[in-house]
């Protein structure tokens, strides 16, 4: 095989984002379902996801060609063309793009509700104190319902990849690992170092915001002498 046949589709940041997100989602579903002391890890991994999502949103504007939302935004025209078999392109096809936006959307809901959720046992999201308990309980129920939507989307995502591999003989996993596809086409361009630094800085800011570290310190507990000893 000749390296001239390789076309860069997924830049390294996009690939790292993808696999880290996959790991994080597995970790979140497991720690969320198991509970116990693992719920603390659930909170930590959730903060990582805050960074990942914001990174991806920025990278969808500043990243390289096929990572950009504008490149693959699933307009009705593009979807129709795809369904007629007339879509030619690299990167996400219009249906895959729908899956991308749906996944990011549900994850965002999951993230925002999680940040203010509580388990009534021994854990509350870092931004819990910003909303009342009633709203926190409501958000918790959304959190628990929306995760089912997420799981369905992930299953569809995996099923589509299997379909492409076995029926359309197009392995989508390898490009997401190695970055390139065999065959010609426009290689991905853009998404340089500056763009990367901007995206990373905004992702870090998101983690900081989600962590609640900026919330005013809770008033120090009153010294023990002010509460009765019994």
């Amino acid at each position, binding site marked *: 095989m000749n390296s001239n046949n390789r076309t860069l589709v997924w830049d390294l940041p996009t690939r790292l984002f993808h696999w880290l997100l996959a790991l994080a989602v597995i970790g979140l579903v497991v720690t969320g379902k198991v*509970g*116990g*002391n693992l719920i603390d890890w659930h909170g930590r991994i959730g903060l990582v996801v805050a960074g990942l999502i914001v990174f991806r949103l920025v990278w969808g504007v500043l990243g390289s060609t096929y990572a950009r939302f504008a490149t693959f935004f699933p307009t009705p025209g593009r979807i129709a063309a795809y369904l007629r078999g007339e879509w030619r392109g690299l990167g996400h096809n219009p249906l895959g793009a729908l899956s991308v936006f749906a996944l990011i959307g549900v994850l965002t809901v999951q993230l925002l509700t999680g940040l203010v959720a509580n388990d009534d*046992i*021994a854990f509350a999201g870092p931004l819990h104190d910003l909303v009342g308990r009633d709203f926190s309980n409501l958000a918790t*129920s959304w959190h628990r319902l929306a995760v089912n939507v997420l799981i369905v989307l992930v299953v569809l995502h995996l099923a589509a990849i299997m379909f492409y591999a076995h029926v359309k003989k197009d392995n989508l996993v390898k490009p997401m690992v190695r970055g390139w596809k065999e065959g010609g086409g426009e290689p991905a361009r853009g998404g340089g170092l500056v763009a990367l630094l901007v995206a990373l800085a905004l992702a870090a800011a998101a983690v900081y915001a989600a962590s609640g570290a900026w919330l005013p310190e809770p008033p120090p507990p009153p010294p023990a002498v002010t509460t009765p000893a019994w």
Partner: protein
Amino acid sequence: MKNKLMLALLATALTATAHAQVKTEDAIKWRQSAYATMGWSMARIKANVEGTYNKDEVIKAANVIQAIANSGMGALYVPGSDKGKGWVDTRVKPELFTDGAKVGKIAGDFNQAANELAKVAATGDAGAVKNAFGKLGGTCKSCHDDYRNK
């Protein structure tokens, strides 16, 4: 003899009514209060496990949970209390009243975990407490997952 019999009958009648008299609203209030009190104790233990460990605080909190766990809270799930309002509208699922054996298993695991936590709390071993605390939290969660509305 006759008096004794009367007394016994009266006593039976009284206990029977004492049971029947747990009003739905009270039953729901009491169980909600008991759970909220356990919530307080869990938060207290967690603060100790994560911050400076105070053996006495943890013992107090663990004993509260143990006492509630062994109080026979099942008595507060009187028939008909699958709906109604205590401090707030009840969140119990009707299945809790019909799943007999499965609920019993969860409640038993919960009791055991609460006893274990109280036992290790008495030793003051922070690591063991953290472990037992996580296990107990898991039993709270398994009941909430199945028998409490989201």
